Protein backbone atom coordinates (compact mmCIF):
# COMPACT_ATOMS: atom_id res chain seq x y z
CA UNK A 1 0.00 0.00 0.00
CA UNK A 2 1.53 3.29 -1.04
CA UNK A 3 0.74 6.65 0.50
CA UNK A 4 -0.77 9.24 -1.74
CA UNK A 5 -0.46 12.88 -0.85
CA UNK A 6 -3.17 15.39 -1.68
CA UNK A 7 -0.72 17.18 -3.98
CA UNK A 8 -0.14 14.02 -6.02
CA UNK A 9 -3.81 13.24 -6.11
CA UNK A 10 -4.74 16.77 -7.20
CA UNK A 11 -2.16 16.77 -10.01
CA UNK A 12 -3.03 13.26 -11.25
CA UNK A 13 -6.78 13.93 -11.32
CA UNK A 14 -6.28 17.32 -12.98
CA UNK A 15 -4.10 15.77 -15.73
CA UNK A 16 -6.56 12.91 -16.29
CA UNK A 17 -9.53 15.31 -16.50
CA UNK A 18 -7.74 17.54 -19.00
CA UNK A 19 -6.64 14.57 -21.12
CA UNK A 20 -10.11 12.95 -21.10
CA UNK A 21 -11.74 16.23 -22.14
CA UNK A 22 -9.22 16.76 -24.94
CA UNK A 23 -10.05 13.31 -26.32
CA UNK A 24 -13.83 13.51 -25.81
CA UNK A 25 -14.29 16.93 -27.38
CA UNK A 26 -12.44 16.15 -30.61
CA UNK A 27 -12.90 12.40 -31.11
CA UNK A 28 -16.24 10.57 -31.10
CA UNK A 29 -16.32 7.00 -29.65
CA UNK A 30 -16.06 4.27 -32.34
CA UNK A 31 -19.49 2.78 -31.55
CA UNK A 32 -21.17 6.16 -32.11
CA UNK A 33 -19.35 6.84 -35.40
CA UNK A 34 -20.19 3.30 -36.58
CA UNK A 35 -23.89 3.86 -35.78
CA UNK A 36 -23.89 7.15 -37.73
CA UNK A 37 -22.16 5.50 -40.70
CA UNK A 38 -24.77 2.71 -40.67
CA UNK A 39 -27.53 5.33 -40.58
CA UNK A 40 -26.00 7.14 -43.56
CA UNK A 41 -25.81 3.86 -45.51
CA UNK A 42 -29.48 3.03 -44.87
CA UNK A 43 -30.93 6.52 -45.44
CA UNK A 44 -32.86 7.16 -48.66
CA UNK A 45 -34.25 10.70 -48.25
CA UNK A 46 -31.86 13.17 -49.94
CA UNK A 47 -32.11 15.81 -47.18
CA UNK A 48 -31.51 13.24 -44.44
CA UNK A 49 -28.55 11.84 -46.38
CA UNK A 50 -27.10 15.35 -46.75
CA UNK A 51 -27.49 15.98 -42.99
CA UNK A 52 -25.81 12.67 -42.06
CA UNK A 53 -23.11 13.32 -44.67
CA UNK A 54 -22.38 16.70 -43.07
CA UNK A 55 -22.19 15.04 -39.65
CA UNK A 56 -19.69 12.43 -40.88
CA UNK A 57 -17.60 15.10 -42.64
CA UNK A 58 -17.65 17.14 -39.45
CA UNK A 59 -16.48 14.19 -37.32
CA UNK A 60 -13.56 13.56 -39.70
CA UNK A 61 -12.65 17.26 -39.79
CA UNK A 62 -12.73 17.60 -35.98
CA UNK A 63 -10.47 14.58 -35.66
CA UNK A 64 -8.06 15.88 -38.29
CA UNK A 65 -7.84 19.46 -36.98
CA UNK A 66 -8.13 18.52 -33.26
CA UNK A 67 -10.98 20.99 -32.96
CA UNK A 68 -14.19 20.48 -30.97
CA UNK A 69 -16.81 18.38 -32.75
CA UNK A 70 -19.55 20.79 -31.61
CA UNK A 71 -19.32 24.41 -30.48
CA UNK A 72 -21.51 23.47 -27.52
CA UNK A 73 -18.63 21.78 -25.76
CA UNK A 74 -21.13 21.07 -23.00
CA UNK A 75 -20.77 20.96 -19.27
CA UNK A 76 -18.44 18.19 -18.12
CA UNK A 77 -20.03 15.38 -16.12
CA UNK A 78 -17.31 13.32 -14.44
CA UNK A 79 -17.41 9.71 -13.28
CA UNK A 80 -14.51 8.39 -11.20
CA UNK A 81 -13.86 4.87 -9.93
CA UNK A 82 -11.70 4.92 -6.84
CA UNK A 83 -9.68 1.84 -5.78
CA UNK A 84 -9.43 0.98 -2.07
CA UNK A 85 -5.85 2.25 -1.66
CA UNK A 86 -6.64 5.79 -2.84
CA UNK A 87 -7.99 8.15 -0.18
CA UNK A 88 -11.26 9.95 -0.92
CA UNK A 89 -10.29 13.54 -0.13
CA UNK A 90 -11.37 16.98 -1.38
CA UNK A 91 -8.20 16.98 -3.54
CA UNK A 92 -10.07 14.78 -6.06
CA UNK A 93 -12.84 17.28 -6.81
CA UNK A 94 -10.33 20.14 -6.69
CA UNK A 95 -8.23 18.26 -9.25
CA UNK A 96 -11.27 17.86 -11.51
CA UNK A 97 -11.98 21.60 -11.33
CA UNK A 98 -8.37 22.40 -12.17
CA UNK A 99 -8.38 19.95 -15.09
CA UNK A 100 -11.62 21.43 -16.47
CA UNK A 101 -10.21 24.96 -16.18
CA UNK A 102 -7.01 23.93 -18.00
CA UNK A 103 -8.91 22.07 -20.76
CA UNK A 104 -11.12 25.15 -21.25
CA UNK A 105 -7.97 27.02 -22.30
CA UNK A 106 -6.15 24.18 -24.11
CA UNK A 107 -8.85 22.68 -26.39
CA UNK A 108 -10.30 25.42 -26.18
CA UNK A 109 -13.79 24.82 -24.77
CA UNK A 110 -16.60 27.35 -24.84
CA UNK A 111 -17.06 28.79 -21.35
CA UNK A 112 -20.60 27.53 -20.71
CA UNK A 113 -21.02 27.59 -16.95
CA UNK A 114 -22.90 30.58 -15.52
CA UNK A 115 -24.47 31.41 -12.19
CA UNK A 116 -28.12 30.25 -12.55
CA UNK A 117 -29.84 33.48 -11.51
CA UNK A 118 -27.37 36.27 -12.35
CA UNK A 119 -26.20 34.40 -15.52
CA UNK A 120 -22.65 35.63 -14.79
CA UNK A 121 -20.15 33.45 -16.69
CA UNK A 122 -17.19 32.09 -14.67
CA UNK A 123 -15.11 31.68 -17.83
CA UNK A 124 -13.69 28.37 -16.57
CA UNK A 125 -16.57 25.91 -17.01
CA UNK A 126 -16.60 25.57 -13.22
CA UNK A 127 -19.16 27.04 -10.84
CA UNK A 128 -20.84 26.36 -7.52
CA UNK A 129 -21.33 22.56 -7.49
CA UNK A 130 -20.10 22.32 -11.11
CA UNK A 131 -18.74 20.22 -12.68
CA UNK A 132 -20.79 17.32 -11.38
CA UNK A 133 -18.47 14.58 -10.07
CA UNK A 134 -19.67 11.04 -9.32
CA UNK A 135 -17.26 8.84 -7.36
CA UNK A 136 -17.79 5.10 -6.91
CA UNK A 137 -15.53 2.33 -5.59
CA UNK A 138 -13.69 0.27 -8.21
CA UNK A 139 -10.65 -1.86 -8.94
CA UNK A 140 -8.72 0.70 -10.96
CA UNK A 141 -8.44 4.47 -10.75
CA UNK A 142 -10.35 5.55 -13.87
CA UNK A 143 -11.89 8.84 -14.90
CA UNK A 144 -14.64 9.27 -17.48
CA UNK A 145 -15.90 12.57 -18.87
CA UNK A 146 -19.27 13.03 -20.53
CA UNK A 147 -19.46 16.59 -21.90
CA UNK A 148 -23.20 17.28 -22.05
CA UNK A 149 -24.66 19.83 -24.45
CA UNK A 150 -27.70 21.93 -23.57
CA UNK A 151 -29.81 21.35 -26.70
CA UNK A 152 -30.47 17.75 -25.76
CA UNK A 153 -30.34 18.27 -21.98
CA UNK A 154 -33.08 20.94 -22.20
CA UNK A 155 -35.62 18.54 -23.73
CA UNK A 156 -34.95 15.69 -21.29
CA UNK A 157 -37.88 14.79 -19.01
CA UNK A 158 -38.82 12.96 -15.83
CA UNK A 159 -42.23 11.58 -14.87
CA UNK A 160 -43.47 10.19 -11.60
CA UNK A 161 -45.86 7.62 -13.08
CA UNK A 162 -48.36 5.67 -11.00
CA UNK A 163 -47.61 2.02 -10.13
CA UNK A 164 -50.64 1.10 -12.30
CA UNK A 165 -48.99 2.75 -15.33
CA UNK A 166 -46.19 0.27 -16.12
CA UNK A 167 -47.62 0.02 -19.65
CA UNK A 168 -47.16 3.79 -20.02
CA UNK A 169 -43.39 3.71 -19.51
CA UNK A 170 -42.74 3.01 -23.19
CA UNK A 171 -45.27 5.66 -24.24
CA UNK A 172 -43.63 8.29 -22.01
CA UNK A 173 -40.18 7.59 -23.46
CA UNK A 174 -41.36 7.77 -27.09
CA UNK A 175 -43.45 10.88 -26.31
CA UNK A 176 -40.32 12.56 -24.90
CA UNK A 177 -38.57 12.02 -28.25
CA UNK A 178 -41.69 13.23 -30.11
CA UNK A 179 -41.90 16.47 -28.12
CA UNK A 180 -38.16 17.04 -28.48
CA UNK A 181 -38.49 16.77 -32.27
CA UNK A 182 -35.50 18.28 -34.09
CA UNK A 183 -34.33 20.36 -31.13
CA UNK A 184 -31.87 17.88 -29.52
CA UNK A 185 -29.90 17.37 -32.80
CA UNK A 186 -31.12 13.91 -33.85
CA UNK A 187 -30.12 11.18 -34.47
CA UNK A 188 -30.35 10.96 -30.69
CA UNK A 189 -29.49 8.41 -28.02
CA UNK A 190 -31.93 7.97 -25.13
CA UNK A 191 -30.60 7.27 -21.65
CA UNK A 192 -33.47 5.97 -19.55
CA UNK A 193 -33.67 5.50 -15.78
CA UNK A 194 -36.63 3.52 -14.43
CA UNK A 195 -37.30 3.23 -10.70
CA UNK A 196 -35.29 4.47 -7.72
CA UNK A 197 -36.29 7.85 -6.33
CA UNK A 198 -36.88 11.14 -8.21
CA UNK A 199 -33.15 11.94 -8.24
CA UNK A 200 -31.95 8.34 -8.67
CA UNK A 201 -34.00 7.89 -11.86
CA UNK A 202 -32.38 10.99 -13.37
CA UNK A 203 -28.91 9.78 -12.39
CA UNK A 204 -29.54 6.33 -13.92
CA UNK A 205 -30.67 8.01 -17.15
CA UNK A 206 -27.41 9.97 -17.29
CA UNK A 207 -25.35 6.89 -16.37
CA UNK A 208 -27.08 4.89 -19.14
CA UNK A 209 -25.50 7.30 -21.64
CA UNK A 210 -22.09 5.87 -20.72
CA UNK A 211 -23.09 2.46 -22.08
CA UNK A 212 -21.79 1.36 -25.51
CA UNK A 213 -24.57 1.66 -28.08
CA UNK A 214 -23.68 -1.28 -30.31
CA UNK A 215 -26.11 -3.59 -28.55
CA UNK A 216 -29.61 -3.30 -27.13
CA UNK A 217 -31.93 -5.72 -25.33
CA UNK A 218 -35.45 -6.42 -26.67
CA UNK A 219 -37.13 -3.64 -24.66
CA UNK A 220 -34.50 -1.07 -25.70
CA UNK A 221 -34.68 -2.13 -29.36
CA UNK A 222 -38.49 -1.90 -29.31
CA UNK A 223 -38.41 1.69 -28.03
CA UNK A 224 -35.65 2.60 -30.50
CA UNK A 225 -37.80 1.24 -33.37
CA UNK A 226 -40.84 3.18 -32.07
CA UNK A 227 -38.86 6.44 -32.06
CA UNK A 228 -37.52 5.78 -35.56
CA UNK A 229 -41.09 5.18 -36.80
CA UNK A 230 -41.88 8.80 -35.88
CA UNK A 231 -39.82 9.83 -38.94
CA UNK A 232 -38.38 12.96 -37.28
CA UNK A 233 -35.06 12.18 -38.95
CA UNK A 234 -31.64 13.83 -38.70
CA UNK A 235 -32.08 17.41 -37.39
CA UNK A 236 -35.89 17.08 -37.53
CA UNK A 237 -35.87 17.37 -41.32
CA UNK A 238 -37.40 13.91 -41.81
CA UNK A 239 -35.84 10.50 -42.47
CA UNK A 240 -35.45 6.96 -41.21
CA UNK A 241 -32.95 7.61 -38.44
CA UNK A 242 -34.16 9.57 -35.43
CA UNK A 243 -32.66 7.37 -32.70
CA UNK A 244 -29.34 5.51 -32.75
CA UNK A 245 -29.94 3.62 -29.50
CA UNK A 246 -31.90 3.41 -26.26
CA UNK A 247 -30.12 2.37 -23.07
CA UNK A 248 -32.15 1.57 -19.97
CA UNK A 249 -31.04 1.26 -16.32
CA UNK A 250 -33.32 0.21 -13.50
CA UNK A 251 -33.38 0.45 -9.71
CA UNK A 252 -35.81 -0.72 -7.05
CA UNK A 253 -38.46 1.81 -6.10
CA UNK A 254 -41.21 2.53 -3.58
CA UNK A 255 -44.29 0.35 -4.03
CA UNK A 256 -46.32 3.54 -4.54
CA UNK A 257 -43.94 5.09 -7.14
CA UNK A 258 -42.76 4.58 -10.71
CA UNK A 259 -40.18 7.24 -11.62
CA UNK A 260 -39.09 7.36 -15.28
CA UNK A 261 -36.35 9.71 -16.47
CA UNK A 262 -35.31 10.19 -20.08
CA UNK A 263 -31.99 11.93 -20.69
CA UNK A 264 -31.63 12.82 -24.35
CA UNK A 265 -28.20 12.79 -25.95
CA UNK A 266 -27.46 14.47 -29.30
CA UNK A 267 -25.58 12.62 -32.07
CA UNK A 268 -22.34 14.14 -30.71
CA UNK A 269 -22.33 11.54 -27.93
CA UNK A 270 -18.97 12.47 -26.51
CA UNK A 271 -17.39 10.37 -23.78
CA UNK A 272 -13.84 9.37 -22.96
CA UNK A 273 -12.28 7.28 -20.21
CA UNK A 274 -8.67 7.52 -19.09
CA UNK A 275 -6.65 5.92 -16.34
CA UNK A 276 -5.61 8.26 -13.53
CA UNK A 277 -1.84 7.86 -13.24
CA UNK A 278 -0.31 8.62 -9.84
Amino acid at each position, binding site marked *: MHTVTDTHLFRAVSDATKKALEIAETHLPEDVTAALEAAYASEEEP*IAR*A*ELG*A*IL*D*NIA*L*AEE*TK*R*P*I*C*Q*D*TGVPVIFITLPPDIPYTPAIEEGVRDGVTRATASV*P*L*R*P*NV*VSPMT*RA*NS*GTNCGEGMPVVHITPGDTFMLTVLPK*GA*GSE*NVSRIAMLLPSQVDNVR*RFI*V*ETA*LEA*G*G*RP*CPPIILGVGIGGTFDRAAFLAKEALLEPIDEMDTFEQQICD*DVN*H*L*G*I*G*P*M*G*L*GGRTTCLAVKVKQAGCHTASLPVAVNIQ*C*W*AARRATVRVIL
Partner: protein
Amino acid sequence: MTIELATPLGDEILDLKAGDRVTLTGMVYTARDEAHLRMQEEGFPFDPEGAAVYHCGPVISGETVIAAGPTTSARMNALTGFLLDAGVRTLIGKGGMSADVLGLLEGRAVYLAFTGGCAALAASRMKVRGVWFEDLGMPEAVWALELDHLPLTVGMDAHGHNLFGDVAARAEAEFAQMFPK
Protein backbone atom coordinates in the same frame (compact mmCIF):
# COMPACT_ATOMS: atom_id res chain seq x y z
CA MET B 1 -29.12 20.99 -57.30
CA THR B 2 -27.53 23.49 -54.93
CA ILE B 3 -28.48 27.18 -55.15
CA GLU B 4 -25.70 29.67 -54.40
CA LEU B 5 -26.62 32.68 -52.26
CA ALA B 6 -24.52 35.68 -51.17
CA THR B 7 -25.13 38.47 -48.63
CA PRO B 8 -26.56 41.10 -48.60
CA LEU B 9 -29.66 39.18 -49.64
CA GLY B 10 -32.52 40.55 -51.70
CA ASP B 11 -35.67 39.26 -53.34
CA GLU B 12 -33.87 36.16 -54.70
CA ILE B 13 -34.68 34.48 -51.39
CA LEU B 14 -38.39 34.70 -52.25
CA ASP B 15 -37.77 32.06 -54.96
CA LEU B 16 -36.51 29.50 -52.43
CA LYS B 17 -38.72 26.56 -51.45
CA ALA B 18 -38.64 24.53 -48.23
CA GLY B 19 -36.38 21.55 -48.87
CA ASP B 20 -34.01 23.35 -51.29
CA ARG B 21 -30.29 22.91 -50.68
CA VAL B 22 -28.30 26.17 -50.78
CA THR B 23 -24.85 27.51 -49.97
CA LEU B 24 -24.37 30.92 -48.36
CA THR B 25 -21.34 33.17 -48.89
CA GLY B 26 -20.59 36.55 -47.28
CA MET B 27 -21.17 38.16 -43.90
CA VAL B 28 -23.45 36.74 -41.20
CA TYR B 29 -24.01 38.03 -37.67
CA THR B 30 -24.34 35.64 -34.73
CA ALA B 31 -27.06 36.31 -32.18
CA ARG B 32 -28.45 34.27 -29.32
CA ASP B 33 -30.98 35.14 -26.60
CA GLU B 34 -28.94 37.86 -24.84
CA ALA B 35 -27.84 39.56 -28.09
CA HIS B 36 -31.47 39.74 -29.27
CA LEU B 37 -32.47 41.44 -26.01
CA ARG B 38 -29.54 43.86 -26.27
CA MET B 39 -30.29 44.78 -29.92
CA GLN B 40 -33.96 45.32 -29.07
CA GLU B 41 -32.88 47.84 -26.42
CA GLU B 42 -29.91 49.53 -28.08
CA GLY B 43 -30.37 48.98 -31.81
CA PHE B 44 -28.27 47.12 -34.37
CA PRO B 45 -24.47 47.25 -34.38
CA PHE B 46 -24.59 46.14 -38.09
CA ASP B 47 -26.75 47.13 -41.06
CA PRO B 48 -29.80 44.84 -40.84
CA GLU B 49 -30.95 45.49 -44.45
CA GLY B 50 -30.52 42.21 -46.37
CA ALA B 51 -28.57 40.75 -43.44
CA ALA B 52 -28.27 37.12 -42.34
CA VAL B 53 -28.58 36.41 -38.61
CA TYR B 54 -27.01 33.17 -37.39
CA HIS B 55 -28.27 31.53 -34.18
CA CYS B 56 -24.83 30.52 -32.95
CA GLY B 57 -22.60 30.82 -29.89
CA PRO B 58 -19.15 30.19 -31.34
CA VAL B 59 -15.83 29.28 -29.78
CA ILE B 60 -13.36 31.94 -30.98
CA SER B 61 -9.67 32.09 -30.20
CA GLY B 62 -8.11 35.41 -31.19
CA GLU B 63 -9.04 35.85 -34.86
CA THR B 64 -9.77 32.16 -35.43
CA VAL B 65 -13.14 30.42 -35.45
CA ILE B 66 -12.55 27.20 -33.50
CA ALA B 67 -16.15 25.92 -33.55
CA ALA B 68 -19.34 27.57 -34.77
CA GLY B 69 -22.33 25.28 -35.32
CA PRO B 70 -25.92 26.44 -34.88
CA THR B 71 -27.86 26.68 -31.62
CA THR B 72 -31.56 25.83 -31.09
CA SER B 73 -33.51 28.52 -32.95
CA ALA B 74 -36.81 27.99 -31.12
CA ARG B 75 -35.43 29.85 -28.09
CA MET B 76 -35.53 33.02 -30.21
CA ASN B 77 -39.16 32.56 -31.42
CA ALA B 78 -40.56 35.48 -29.46
CA LEU B 79 -37.51 37.71 -30.13
CA THR B 80 -37.51 37.57 -33.93
CA GLY B 81 -40.09 40.10 -35.17
CA PHE B 82 -37.91 43.22 -34.81
CA LEU B 83 -35.13 41.63 -36.91
CA LEU B 84 -37.44 40.97 -39.83
CA ASP B 85 -39.07 44.42 -39.50
CA ALA B 86 -35.59 45.95 -39.82
CA GLY B 87 -34.88 44.09 -43.08
CA VAL B 88 -33.09 40.90 -42.01
CA ARG B 89 -33.63 38.42 -44.87
CA THR B 90 -32.58 35.11 -43.39
CA LEU B 91 -32.30 33.41 -40.03
CA ILE B 92 -29.90 30.49 -39.80
CA GLY B 93 -30.03 27.90 -37.05
CA LYS B 94 -31.18 24.44 -36.11
CA GLY B 95 -34.48 22.82 -35.23
CA GLY B 96 -36.77 25.34 -36.94
CA MET B 97 -39.01 28.03 -35.45
CA SER B 98 -42.66 28.53 -34.44
CA ALA B 99 -45.81 29.00 -36.53
CA ASP B 100 -45.73 32.68 -35.48
CA VAL B 101 -42.27 33.07 -37.01
CA LEU B 102 -43.45 31.26 -40.18
CA GLY B 103 -46.14 33.97 -40.46
CA LEU B 104 -43.55 36.72 -39.94
CA LEU B 105 -41.32 35.28 -42.69
CA GLU B 106 -44.15 35.42 -45.24
CA GLY B 107 -43.19 37.47 -48.29
CA ARG B 108 -39.89 38.72 -46.89
CA ALA B 109 -37.47 36.18 -45.39
CA VAL B 110 -36.48 32.51 -45.06
CA TYR B 111 -35.16 30.19 -42.35
CA LEU B 112 -32.07 28.17 -43.28
CA ALA B 113 -31.09 25.04 -41.34
CA PHE B 114 -27.47 24.19 -40.75
CA THR B 115 -26.67 20.71 -39.47
CA GLY B 116 -26.65 20.89 -35.69
CA GLY B 117 -23.38 20.12 -34.00
CA CYS B 118 -21.29 20.49 -37.16
CA ALA B 119 -19.02 23.04 -35.57
CA ALA B 120 -15.73 21.91 -37.08
CA LEU B 121 -17.28 21.87 -40.57
CA ALA B 122 -18.73 25.35 -40.03
CA ALA B 123 -15.45 26.70 -38.66
CA SER B 124 -13.61 25.50 -41.78
CA ARG B 125 -15.87 27.79 -43.89
CA MET B 126 -15.67 30.95 -41.72
CA LYS B 127 -13.46 33.91 -40.83
CA VAL B 128 -13.91 36.37 -37.94
CA ARG B 129 -14.51 39.95 -39.15
CA GLY B 130 -15.66 41.73 -35.99
CA VAL B 131 -17.42 41.50 -32.64
CA TRP B 132 -19.88 43.56 -30.58
CA PHE B 133 -21.34 43.17 -27.07
CA GLU B 134 -18.34 41.16 -25.83
CA ASP B 135 -19.43 41.91 -22.26
CA LEU B 136 -22.21 39.31 -22.78
CA GLY B 137 -19.57 36.56 -22.91
CA MET B 138 -18.17 34.66 -25.88
CA PRO B 139 -21.28 32.61 -26.78
CA GLU B 140 -23.75 35.51 -26.40
CA ALA B 141 -21.74 38.27 -28.12
CA VAL B 142 -22.55 39.32 -31.73
CA TRP B 143 -19.77 38.05 -34.03
CA ALA B 144 -19.42 39.14 -37.67
CA LEU B 145 -18.37 35.99 -39.54
CA GLU B 146 -17.56 35.77 -43.23
CA LEU B 147 -18.84 32.55 -44.78
CA ASP B 148 -17.45 30.67 -47.75
CA HIS B 149 -20.18 28.47 -49.24
CA LEU B 150 -21.76 27.16 -46.03
CA PRO B 151 -24.11 24.27 -47.00
CA LEU B 152 -27.69 24.80 -45.72
CA THR B 153 -31.23 23.50 -46.18
CA VAL B 154 -34.23 25.82 -46.60
CA GLY B 155 -36.27 24.81 -43.54
CA MET B 156 -38.98 27.49 -43.78
CA ASP B 157 -39.66 29.52 -46.92
CA ALA B 158 -41.31 32.91 -47.48
CA HIS B 159 -44.56 31.29 -48.67
CA GLY B 160 -45.72 29.51 -45.51
CA HIS B 161 -43.98 26.16 -46.09
CA ASN B 162 -42.26 24.63 -43.10
CA LEU B 163 -40.29 21.41 -43.49
CA PHE B 164 -39.99 21.02 -39.70
CA GLY B 165 -43.73 21.55 -39.26
CA ASP B 166 -44.58 18.91 -41.88
CA VAL B 167 -42.22 16.38 -40.29
CA ALA B 168 -43.56 17.16 -36.79
CA ALA B 169 -47.18 16.76 -37.95
CA ARG B 170 -46.41 13.35 -39.49
CA ALA B 171 -44.58 12.31 -36.28
CA GLU B 172 -47.64 13.34 -34.18
CA ALA B 173 -49.92 11.24 -36.39
CA GLU B 174 -47.57 8.26 -36.21
CA PHE B 175 -47.41 8.56 -32.41
CA ALA B 176 -51.22 8.72 -32.12
CA GLN B 177 -51.44 5.46 -34.10
CA MET B 178 -48.75 3.74 -32.04
CA PHE B 179 -50.20 4.77 -28.69
CA PRO B 180 -53.97 5.32 -29.02
CA LYS B 181 -55.46 7.11 -26.00
